[in-house]
């Protein structure tokens, strides 16, 4: 049985059907005029070979081509995409099945941050009253390592609401190079979680090693097709409207191998996209559709996700403002656009502007997590633990995020109202009203034990002081102390024999000797 996710029965819709159509038509216009600039020759050739109007606009050291994509090519590609995408997992109970027309949401971690935030607690004593002490969390940033990635995957394996895993931290150990980063980040992730693993690729040269690693884990090529335990995310389109040379190469090769891939675009309203909602929506939709069109021209039926990471610019720095309300609005619009094409959507929430866990980070992430979930994306990249946009990862924050996702999942449970419930309730009301106390307390008990009552906030203290961080920290350490189902010894041995570049310290069986 695959994971259930949470079905949003009546998804929140921000834009009307007419507005969806308007954005769609505007995107079609954009793809024809001005079209996209491709810095990737092969992509330009593929588009040309399939009937797009392609013109070389620059030569020399930095050649590029103007690609104008006719509507029929886009619609044909949309038509040929899989409307159901399966993301496999080492534990088959963690498989995710995403249907483009079903607003069933799965919560997934990510993205890749450079900084890992350690947490420690200091005790402070009140000057005027030395018997009064408080423990205050302190956060210490440092460069992320492969050991951190293992810890993060380990904790996310045990976080109840996490459905899948996108690497949370960029591994920057001294012995990590461009040539061995991909195999190590995939291995560290796969070896510490039995959930689906998605990542970007640093080097195209590593693609086949990563795919081979996954094949060894599941037992072969066909088994990997049946249970794709890994998938990829690519930002082949740089906003506005440019196919990037190297990422597009990577994207084409992933499509050729038929593995699931996210076509992601991340325009910033105000700088790399128009500031007005209609503008950024028309552009991001055009950019994603251009990538999806390419995927289907390379390999018809490539499982793709409509990836949207739109963001509004900060007015003070022109940096990203993921905490802005507009960012959530754009994401909801994208969910609706993907649903219009019946392609499963990769959407974004929970990315915040705050740099440390605290009230700001809680408010920003809970707001966007809630509203974007309500719109019903299939793959919600909801940024467990991410801070400072996508620069910092904090494991403590991920544990806190899991708590509010439990609340969101509870909120979206179907309303238990039906003829049976009404009949029982009427009987109950009549009984209670006839008693002197007129209280329904007796009827709470079976309901309380059946899981129908939501749990209290797990980090609730004594209600006179806020001990959330200390309690979440304790929980984090409990999760780290739980065992992880690693890849078995024989498979690990094969992987280390066949796949070059893996760090010996990641072999848990060798380390134990």
């Amino acid at each position: 049985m695959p994971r259930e996710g949470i079905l949003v029965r009546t998804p929140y819709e921000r834009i009307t059907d007419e507005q969806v159509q308007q954005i769609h038509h505007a995107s079609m216009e954009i793809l024809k005029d001005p079209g996209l600039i491709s810095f990737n020759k092969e992509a330009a050739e593929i588009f040309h070979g399939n009937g797009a109007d392609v013109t070389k606009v620059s030569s020399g050291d930095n050649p590029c081509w103007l690609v104008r994509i006719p509507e029929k090519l886009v619609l044909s590609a949309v038509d040929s995409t899989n409307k159901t995408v399966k993301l496999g997992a080492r534990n088959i109970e963690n498989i995710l099945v995403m249907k483009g027309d079903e607003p069933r949401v799965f919560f997934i971690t990510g993205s890749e941050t450079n900084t890992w935030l350690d947490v420690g607690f200091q005790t402070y004593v009140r000057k005027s009253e030395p018997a009064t002490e408080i423990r205050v969390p302190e956060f210490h940033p440092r460069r992320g390592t492969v050991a951190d990635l293992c810890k993060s995957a380990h904790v996310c394996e045990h976080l109840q609401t996490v459905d899948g895993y996108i690497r949370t931290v960029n591994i920057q150990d001294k012995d990590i190079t461009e040539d061995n980063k991909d195999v190590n980040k995939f291995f560290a992730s796969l070896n510490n979680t039995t959930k689906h693993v998605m990542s970007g690729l640093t080097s195209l040269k590593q693609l086949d090693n990563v795919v081979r690693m996954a094949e060894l884990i599941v037992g072969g090529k066909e088994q990997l097709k049946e249970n794709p335990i890994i998938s990829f995310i690519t930002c082949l389109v740089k906003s506005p409207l440019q196919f990037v040379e190297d990422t597009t190469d990577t994207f084409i090769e992933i499509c050729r191998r038929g593995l699931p891939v996210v076509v992601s675009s991340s325009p910033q309203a105000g700088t790399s996209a128009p500031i007005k909602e209609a503008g950024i929506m028309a552009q991001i939709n055009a950019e994603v559709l251009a990538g999806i069109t390419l995927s289907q021209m390379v390999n018809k039926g490539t499982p793709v996700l409509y990836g949207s990471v739109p963001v509004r610019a900060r007015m003070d720095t022109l940096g990203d403002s993921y905490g802005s309300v507009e960012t959530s609005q754009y994401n909801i619009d994208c969910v609706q656009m993907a649903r219009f094409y019946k392609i499963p959507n990769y959407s974004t929430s929970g990315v915040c502007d705050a740099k440390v866990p605290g009230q700001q980070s809680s408010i920003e992430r809970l707001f966007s997590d809630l509203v974007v979930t309500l719109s019903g994306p299939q793959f919600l990249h909801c940024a467990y633990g991410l801070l400072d946009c996508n620069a910092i990862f904090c494991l403590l924050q991920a544990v806190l995020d899991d708590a509010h996702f439990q609340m969101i999942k509870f909120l979206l449970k179907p309303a238990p109202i039906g003829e049976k419930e009404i009949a029982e309730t009427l009987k109950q009301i009549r009984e209670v009203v006839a008693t002197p106390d007129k209280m329904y307390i007796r009827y709470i008990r079976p309901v309380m034990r059946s899981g129908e009552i939501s749990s209290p906030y797990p980090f609730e203290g004594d209600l006179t002081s806020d001990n959330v961080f200390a309690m979440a920290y304790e929980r984090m350490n409990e999760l780290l102390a739980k065992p992880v189902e690693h890849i078995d010894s024989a498979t690990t041995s094969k992987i280390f024999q066949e796949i070059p570049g893996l760090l010996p310290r990641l072999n848990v069986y060798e380390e134990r000797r």
Partner: protein
Amino acid sequence: MAEDILKLIQENVIQGRITKDDEGFEEGMSGQPGVTELIEMALAQNINAQDIINNGLTKGMEIVGEKFEAKQYFIPDMLASAQAVGAAMDILEPHLAGTAAKAKGKIIVATVKGDLHDIGKNIVSILLRGAGYTVKDLGNDIDTSTIVEAVREEKPQFLGLSALLISTMANMADVVQALKDAGLRDKVKIIIGGAPVSEEFAKSIGADGYGADGFGAVRVVESLFNADAT
């Protein structure tokens, strides 16, 4: 046989089942005798009322208390068990007359004039009954004079006053004063509770105790009861 039935009373107190129709929270309980039916059966078998209280009801409540401390039980569980004990005490009370055993004491409870809120008062009543007190509940929005008359007639050891509104809490002071005027103040211990009141307020109006919640109210009554007994 007596042991078996007392054990069943205990278990049903733990389950909070008053009658055979109650479900409890374990499968298959419905239809089996609840606390009230079991008490009748025990009395029919000439089991001593004091035995029923000590080895059935009180033991059951002790286990409920332990479960509550261990966070296996929540307040609804405590209240359901207390309700079962209260219902049992109603049946047992006539059988205690003329014996050394008796209910711990009588308490009158009321929500004061102008206030219709009675959830807190009802919870306190249930818990007090579960703790072995005889509770007379006058209801809500009760005139000061009605409360004074009830104290005169019923001669309770305790009077519990409840208010939820800032605008009605002052009526608690009126009741205390009216009892003084009627020469009854020394005959009854007054405990107050409710969202707007506090320990300080209780002292300021001359009440004997303050309960921050249902359990707090029972603790205060118990401590006053025990102080009186020594």
